[in-house]
């Protein structure tokens, strides 16, 4: 079965897969931005924080690994879609924004507030930072949703 010949169907944009692959890239990109900008450049929440419990370190390692895998696998899956002419550009943009916004909001709500793995910044009044963090996530999600609506109108699935 895996060796079955490739179906000779004419190339057709695959909306759902484009959306999914781009969302994967969006998540990976946002995770990388979080890690590189906030952990390593601004050092707001640090490379390693001794007050963080071991669970926090392990989850951070998993996030790091996931981010790498998401970026590399997303790039190759996107390349595969492009090669097959199945890349639906509008849906992909929507997926990218939805993935990035979804990750940002998830990080802001679950990691920071529910699990309390780390905060946006230490030693400051946290509320403005939390509001800004989650507002960015919401804004990205809103852009993604708007793009998805536009994509649906442009080419009814």
């Amino acid at each position, binding site marked *: 079965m*895996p*060796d079955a010949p*490739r*179906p000779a169907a004419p190339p057709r944009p695959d909306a759902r*897969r484009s959306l999914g692959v781009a969302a994967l890239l969006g998540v990976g990109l946002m995770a990388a931005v979080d890690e590189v900008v906030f952990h390593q450049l601004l050092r707001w929440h640090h*490379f*390693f924080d*001794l007050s963080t419990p071991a669970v926090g*370190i*392990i989850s*951070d*390692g*998993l996030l*790091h*690994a*996931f981010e*790498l*895998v998401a970026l*590399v*696998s997303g*790039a*190759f*899956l996107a*390349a*595969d879609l492009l090669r*097959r002419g199945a890349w639906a550009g509008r849906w992909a943009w929507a997926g990218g924004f939805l993935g990035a916004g979804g990750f940002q909001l998830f990080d802001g709500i679950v990691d920071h507030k529910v699990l309390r793995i780390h905060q946006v910044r230490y030693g400051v009044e946290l509320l403005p930072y939390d509001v800004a963090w989650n507002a960015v996530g919401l804004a990205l999600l809103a852009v993604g949703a708007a793009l998805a609506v536009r994509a649906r109108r442009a080419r009814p699935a």
Partner: protein
Amino acid sequence: MAYLAAARAQRRAGRRWAGGRTAAFAGGVALLALAAAPPLAAWAHGDLRGHMVQHVLVGMLAPLGLVLGAPVALALRTLPVPAARRVTRFLRGRVVRVVSHPATAAVLNVGGMAVLYLTPLYAATLHAPALHALVHLHVLAAGVLFTWAVLAGPDPAPHPAPLATRLGVLTLAIAAHAVLGKLMYGYGWPCGVAGAAEVQAAAQVMYYGGDLAEGLLLVALFARWYRAGRTAGGGAAAGGGVAARARRAPQDLRRVRG
């Protein structure tokens, strides 16, 4: 040397041996030579940072080149048939099956590192040259084994794990490596061999160097999937590419043997 001679023999016999493979293998050997070069070896002897640079070269970057060079496939093609048959029998044996499972290889690889740095073993190697050499040998062997187990190629892999398993194990191994680097950074392991700043710098070399090597391994894994050229829907089905290729590997083995 043997690799180059064998590659030339293949060419001369009118059979193709890709230049890229030769280049990958030569790159791996060059990285090993770099790691063993007197300046780096001297630095590594008294400095944990130097040791860690050596470690990333020997255990992570060089294995990638060596494995992508497909030395076993070349040997099977070049060796006389009885010898090649013995190699094949060994590769198909139970030992290789157990040891070359990605999970086993990952434990041998990252677990070995954890034992080395989180126990007094590292301090012991500083005073026992034989133990030191043994550790380096383990690092190289485990690195090659892990790379081969994750890629399930280009050398014949008689017992390839499914792509999802290999990707999952690689993800966990990357995470474990990052956690290990942070533990060393945070708690100053290995204890009693260097100052805190030196240990932290070494941990960062491990963290970022490891990232680079693991990123390249990921790219190699997906490049193989991409080149296999499968059109697939969804993650599991997407695995058909590499997995299908990997499943064909035993046939390659048979062809080589015959």
